[in-house]
């Protein structure tokens, strides 16, 4: 079983192509996420960013190409296997059970780290109880870390949009990932909240050494957080490099940022 600790590995995307009836969402895209770095993937709407995430997390199967985490081949693995390897993600459109409390949603994140099966849980084996206690405490820690303690017992559905996005981030963190895929984490947040999330992400990288793949339209956040940037347009990689390089790349400006940005 995967140990969460241990040297983080690089995430290598090679020549990944994804086709849907009639359109090519990703066209031979390649980039590498260095361990413990924040790698931003940006591009116009419909460029293929979420699709990339869907491939990385096993939701979509790449038509061709390969994705590697360290030495492990991810392509073709089922989502839960990829999760087991320590790849966690958030969703662009929220995917939270509306009635479950935040605490429960976060506990779900612990799934891959816990063992209790039907029998253990059904018979309330001490091992299961111990496990549960241990992980609830960790969940509380993480909630504290992203500032959700007060909401722990509230049903997620009643939280405002921004908070719900935080819960998603928390749930992903609860998976103690090696690689964290964030799909527009600060969308729909105020400056304050963006600042907080940005700080969280930075901390995750610096404090926990987790590699982060970040899809975000807020250039400010991207430019300052990202160690490297990959730019997609119409499923093709049109530019890449350090934020600075990318920002001044005419192709990027033309396709994505627009002159006034």
């Amino acid at each position, binding site marked *: 079983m995967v140990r969460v600790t241990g040297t983080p590995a690089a995430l290598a995307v090679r020549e990944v192509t994804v086709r849907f009836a009639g359109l090519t969402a990703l066209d031979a895209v390649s980039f590498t996420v260095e361990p413990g770095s924040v790698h931003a993937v940006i591009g116009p709407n419909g460029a293929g960013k979420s699709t990339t995430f869907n491939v990385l997390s096993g939701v979509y199967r790449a038509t061709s190409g390969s994705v590697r985490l360290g030495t492990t081949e991810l392509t073709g693995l089922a989502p839960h296997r990829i999760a087991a390897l320590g790849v966690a993600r958030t969703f662009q459109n929220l995917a939270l059970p509306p009635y479950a409390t935040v605490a429960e949603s976060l506990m779900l994140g612990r799934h891959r780290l816990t063992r209790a099966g039907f029998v253990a849980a059904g018979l309330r084996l001490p091992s299961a109880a111990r496990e549960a206690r241990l992980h609830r405490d960790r969940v509380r820690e993480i909630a504290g870390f992203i500032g959700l303690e007060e909401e722990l017992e509230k049903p997620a559905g009643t939280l405002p949009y921004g908070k719900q996005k935080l819960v998603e981030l928390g749930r992903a963190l609860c998976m103690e990932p090696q690689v964290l895929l964030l799909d527009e984490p600060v969308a729909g947040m105020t400056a304050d909240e963006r600042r*907080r999330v940005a700080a969280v992400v930075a901390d995750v990288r610096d404090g926990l050494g987790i590699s982060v793949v970040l899809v975000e339209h807020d250039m400010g956040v991207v430019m300052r957080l990202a160690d490297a940037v990959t730019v997609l347009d119409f499923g093709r990689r049109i530019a890449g490099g350090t934020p600075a390089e990318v920002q001044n790349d005419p192709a990027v400006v033309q396709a994505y940022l627009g002159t006034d940005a």
Partner: protein
Amino acid sequence: MATLEIRDLSVGYGPVRALRDVSVDVPAGAITAVLGGNGAGKTTLLRAVSRTLGFHRGTSTGTIRFDGRRLDGLRPAQVVAAGVIQVPEGRQVFARMTVADNLRAGALGARGGRRTTAAALDRVHALFPVLARRAHQRAGLLSGGEQQMLAMGRALMAGPRLLLLDEPSLGLAPLMAARIAETVQEINADGTSVMLVEQNAAIALRLATTAYVLDVGEVALSGPAGELAASDEVRRRYLGVVDETAAADATRAVDGPSRPLSRWSA
């Protein structure tokens, strides 16, 4: 010309008080921005106007007038019939219907006849060419931003007199966000009043003539957009000129995570 007057509006979701005595005016033909943090009650405010609180077991008191006509007490469909159209938060496209059918659904509330509808459709396609290209794709398969465009276009199909926008630029690329901003201005120029809920305060205050700031359910500040844009409070919390400082802060991690998180080992 249409004006929206909200007076002493209070909204509760069961025990949760979401809005307290909020009064807002959306003058005819103007763009009015509503700012506020998460949970401030912006969406709730729009829900109250469009009478869709019921879907969330929400209850409201206070009066809402549109052209002097009471909206509170009406059914959502009647509000739409009056020409008040809301673009819901978080896209809410009809995922299993085609893009084209989504737009047709938008036109259901239109007051004009076939011709106006056709015209509206052309305009939407002009604004968002991708919607024309994807006319027969199921909306659920669109990308987040494409869905946002569809939500916007769908609302325009109804030929609104008052447009309620809940974070229209959410998840849009800068270029597209700018495009939306122009669009809003155009629509407004054609005589549609707009009530704009935006997180991107910069855009919002640039577009709006007047603005309100909601804080945990109450109007904290209000006034001409220009003045607000100048006020420190707003500058720090909402403009905060995020784009410059946020990440800077982040790297320094001031007022960031309440407690540091240690690595999990088990």
